[in-house]
């Protein structure tokens, strides 16, 4: 029996804006009158490390998504998509920003960053569908490289049981007004990628 309407796992690197996506979704869910909960990474792990956020829409239980339970995996960085792929349900969808952020273990020459195809292939084998996009480039086109997370939010919007109107309304509450237009553009570009 399903215990949640929709389970999301949002992953990336500390500083990429993972929490903003979950905050917008949480606020939109509250506006829609749906119970919603989530869990996030703070503290030491944030310093350039991998971060994971769990968000459960229409759920009154624990804030953590179980292994194999996520309906959607949103990855702001490709290696992190694969790192946390075990959370994704085999019937789930992965949305992946293809722009790598090199960890210090790679920049220092200790290990290599695998080619994108070697990351995406096992992800494709593991899930129902993978949407890969250069969200960082799309954010640049929208006028703010910082809005990469909002490109991914736009791509996510059609995959969750919340109306686009509410998501955009919630977005306008968390983004500073002067960046709102660029963020709305970023959202639309992300949305177009999965249509």
């Amino acid at each position, binding site marked *: 029996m399903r215990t949640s309407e929709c389970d999301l796992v949002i992953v990336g690197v500390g500083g990429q804006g993972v929490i903003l996506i979950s905050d917008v979704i949480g606020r939109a869910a509250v506006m829609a009158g749906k119970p919603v909960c989530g869990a*996030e990474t703070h*503290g030491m792990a944030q310093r350039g490390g991998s971060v994971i956020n769990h968000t459960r829409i229409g759920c009154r*239980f624990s804030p953590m998504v179980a292994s194999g339970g996520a309906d959607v995996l949103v990855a702001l960085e490709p290696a992190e998509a694969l790192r946390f792929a075990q959370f994704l349900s085999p019937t789930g969808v992965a949305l992946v920003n293809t722009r790598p952020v090199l960890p210090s273990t790679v920049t220092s020459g200790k290990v290599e960053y695998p080619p994108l195809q070697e990351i995406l292939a096992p992800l494709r084998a593991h899930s129902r569908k993978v949407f890969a996009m250069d969200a960082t480039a799309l954010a640049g086109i929208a006028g703010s490289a910082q809005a990469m997370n909002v490109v991914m939010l736009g791509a996510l919007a059609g995959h969750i049981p919340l109306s686009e109107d509410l998501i955009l309304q919630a977005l306008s509450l968390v983004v500073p007004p002067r960046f709102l237009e660029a963020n709305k553009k970023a959202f639309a570009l992300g949305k177009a990628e999965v249509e």
Partner: protein
Amino acid sequence: MREYLLGNAAIARGLLEAGVGLVAGYPGTPSSEIIETVASIKNNMPAHVEWSVNEKVALEVAAGASWTGRRAAATMKHVGLNVAADPFMTLAYLGVGAGLVVICADDPYCHSSQNEQDSRRYAQFAGIPCLDPKNPQEAKEMTVFAFELSEKFNIPVMLRPTTRVSHAREDVEIGSVAAPGKQGRFIKDPARRVALPSHARPLHSELLAKQAAMEEALESAPWNRLELHGDVGIIASGIAGLYAEEAALELDEDLSLLCIGSYPLPKKLIRRMLEHVSKVMVIEELEPVVEEQVQMIAREINPHVNILGKAQSIPREGELDYLQVRNAIARMIERPEREALQCPAVSILPPRPPSLCAGCSHRATHYAMRKVFGKKAIYPSDIGCYTMAVDMGTVDTCLCMGASITLASGIRFGGEEEGICCSLGDSTFLHGGMTGLLNAAYNKARITVTILDNSTTAMTGHQPHPGTGMTATGEKTTMVSIEALAKALGAGLVETVDPYRLDETMKSFQRAKDYPGLSVIIARQPCVIKARRSGLRPKSFLVGEECIGCKICLDFGCPAIEFENDKARINALCSGCGVCAAICSSSAIREVAK
């Protein structure tokens, strides 16, 4: 009205709804956002909110306000309670004026901590009630209730969220904020405020006598919920209750369920459960606090009931997760387990450990320290971002706040003859390092103490401290001089350096190394995250064609330096500190005009 709130923000909200008059605490993951949230709600701020110098101080300040008739709370992480243990234990005897709540956030799995001690044991030890929320909504309600309970039984009350409550988000029902009440007055009552032996003895008896009444009162608390169904049962505490409820629903099994959120435990509810079932599983994170009580009650009333717990199904370390709980229940009722998915391709991924930021001055200080003191020297260190310099070979110990200096002293007195250079941050020094420095001076420890002064409490989210000249609410205050403190505490040599000036820093470390007594080096440079936020990016650097690919700069470990086609390259993370230019063997790294 409902709002999507972080657990710690929900607790802050609860404090304001309870009309709290004072909140004091020391930052520590996962507790820090409670005070930050209280301090950010400007219009509804309590009479006083502060970042205290440490947790002991915070609890004592809170107790003082409570004795003056103001509801008061002290916030800390679990290991902070060790620091505050002295007032904590005796406050249980002396009692409160207005309600006093100790908010102590536990960290099962050590997400951001040096151990995973279970604070429910502390509450049990002190003999005070403990409220153990399962989610942000409950955390908020328990915060308000904790003050009422504290006043009813004249005793401090512990609220014990865990990381998965403090850093969970949830839609939380918001109530109205209460005013902190009229101005306080301290009423003299030596028998209850002066812990002389002759006062303490009757107070201890009183504390013990309260236990039964507190247990009775908590028996009917709404967060202890018993549902009797089938003859197999689950008793679960805190967040484990949510996992168990979800598992019962997913497995579609008619299990009896007792969810527990308060201590002393609801023994009557436990009795009713044990009378009803033939088999019961106790599910709780960390210590078997509930399980031990269940075992004791079972021996009295139903020795035949089969009790499963830590020995069979539920680990005593780390945090629980849904699948673990679900599968433990499935095994108990002989249903198939659901395996966690594996994705073998993960092995191709590069590790991404947390690391010091690009341009972090701690890296430069540790680099200079290692260059001067050498590989054989001993480097006791401490708790903060700089503990991540463990990969640089300059972090040989990390025990607890301030222990770098005292361990260094003990290592010297133990007979170690190599150089000893310890390191700790500014906030850590002010929290727990000053007494150790005084002790080192008094007992003639020949060591070097490096105070890594980035003028903030960086790791926990950049909280101010007495060295910053700013209070928790952003008011200007006395800015304490770390140099003057170090001298006053008895250090013989005290020098301040800018770690971005590598050459001068190394010269300073050399003088400290040669000094025949206690030396202190204060390496001062603002936290690079704060500097970036305030728009400071003093210089830009690039690697020229002269690069010979020697990788010396790469060994420095700054994330802004990459290696490509046999040459170093500086990426966009560069904060312009310029230290790599100073260590480059071929003078290939140079500043570029903007």
